[in-house]
């Protein structure tokens, strides 16, 4: 296990990195000897697509929320392109796609997508045209519909369009596709990649799925649980743009196997979850 995993961000200035240094966080009421995040350090270079993967309780969602400025921490440091996560939010430079679409059910699709432009106007960040965004996610003619009239996949596409709407510098996604069926999920992954390539933003993507992580990422951060630590950072050296053919190729499968092996050793490195009975 490397305490300071190196990735391609080492030589860049802090203003070009999401930089987390020695970050430790214990939840109130949690076991202080097993923090949710234990001296986590990582650099995520601008415009990279990075996935966080690991067993339940490894702190990947916590790390995402820290980068989003939604969560405090005990010690260490987290900066996003040289400033604090909160300052990034104040500047509306952070897009968040939670696990559930988190749309406002009383607003139609178009107004949901326009929401970031209505809120916190002081940031003065001009956004994309909602209709352009809708076309980009392939929902061009559904702008007047309400969320309850859409399928789960369509709702999540609206949430992605909303997050891209402010042209955010960082896009944070917390298992956004985990509730979708396999087929919808794969088509949304490729759609997301297309949008990411077009918008040139930095993505931090939490997932449970090895295949999803390999399909999407430049680097995969494998984490271990109890305490939450970074186990290994695996670069994904597959060409872009990625398409269905590549996703089903042997190189892809080889990469998936590497990630699985790493996850296996991460699992052994972490303590067993408290709620599992030893056999």
């Amino acid at each position: 296990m490397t305490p300071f995993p190196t990735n391609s961000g080492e030589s860049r200035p802090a203003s070009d990195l999401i930089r987390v240094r020695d970050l430790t966080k214990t939840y109130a009421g949690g076991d202080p000897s097993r923090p949710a995040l234990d001296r986590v350090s990582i650099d995520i270079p601008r415009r990279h697509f990075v996935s966080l993967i690991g067993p339940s309780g490894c702190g990947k969602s916590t790390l995402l929320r820290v980068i989003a400025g939604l969560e405090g921490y005990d010690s260490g440091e987290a900066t996003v392109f040289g400033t604090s996560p909160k300052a990034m939010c104040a500047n509306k430079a952070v897009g968040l796609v939670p696990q559930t679409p988190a749309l406002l059910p009383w607003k139609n699709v178009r107004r949901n997508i326009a929401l970031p432009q209505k809120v916190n106007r002081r940031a003065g960040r001009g956004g994309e045209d909602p209709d352009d965004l809708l076309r980009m996610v392939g929902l061009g003619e559904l702008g007047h519909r309400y969320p309850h009239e859409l399928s789960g996949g369509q709702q999540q596409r609206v949430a992605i369009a909303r997050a891209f709407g402010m042209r955010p510098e960082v896009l944070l996604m917390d298992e956004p596709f985990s509730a979708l069926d396999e087929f919808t999920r794969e088509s949304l992954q490729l759609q997301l990649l297309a949008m990411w390539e077009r918008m040139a933003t930095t993505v931090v993507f939490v997932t449970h799925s090895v295949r999803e992580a390999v399909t999407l990422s430049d680097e995969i951060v494998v984490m271990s649980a109890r305490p939450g630590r970074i186990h290994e950072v695996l670069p994904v050296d597959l060409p872009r743009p990625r398409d269905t053919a590549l996703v089903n190729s042997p190189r892809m499968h080889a990469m998936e196997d590497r990630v699985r092996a790493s996850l296996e050793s991460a699992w052994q490195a972490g303590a067993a979850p408290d709620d599992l009975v030893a056999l």
Partner: protein
Amino acid sequence: MTTQTPARTVPAPSRPAPPARRPRRRGNRSPFHPATWTPAVAVLLLLGAAWTAVAAEHPYILPELGEVGTALVTSPLVFLENAWRTLRIALLGALIGAGSAFVLALVMSEIPVVRRALMPFAVVLNVTPVVALAPPLVVAFGFGMTPKVVVTAIITFFPVLINVATGLRSVPPPVLHVFETLHASRLEVLLRLRIPSSLPYTLAALRVVLPLSIVGAVVAEFVTAGSSGGLGTVISNAASTARLDFVYSAIFCLAALGVLLLALVTAIEHRLLFWHESQRRASS
């Protein structure tokens, strides 16, 4: 696997056409279908027969239904005028009670200290039988509209306070997180998120509170009987002279008012909450 023409978005699987904007309730028969109304009508006829039987034997227990009808038909203005007075008091009281409860719930949700300071008293007020306040309020405010409106306002206050306070806290955390990452102000969160989220709770409270407001108005009218009108006054005056036909005519009017208010809330719910699960039980 090297350079290929960049494959673009695979369109999501096309699904069967999504339902129309406000889907009709499926599985629900039309209200005009005989199967819908026959059972209720049967019970109504049964009740009518029982009533007639009792009234024939004991005219001092129930008046003949015909007499009730006659009373309504021969002096419709009396009932209309007094129903209007009662309704006016009920609505004014509900407006003041529910309105101030809504505002207080907003303040409580934003300033926890206010919540801790006032909630115990609101609970005590709720378990106090508020109608008992009517006589002292008459002493305090005289026989005009004021004591009746005050009683009605107090009765409607608590259910709205509790429901709105719950509704304002019912925002799903992921949505709140999206607002937080946008650095939305508290006012923006309140106006764009918390208040709309609380609407189903607010309307559920109104569904309870509007019929209650009529109870409040009538009880207050009992206490001030003889001075100023209202259906409560009609009832207590007619009862004291054993005019049961007038008493039951007034009671039917009160029931009609209650139904009217309920229908009003249902219509508002249908209009404002088209997005909420409660409005599409049958279609999903």
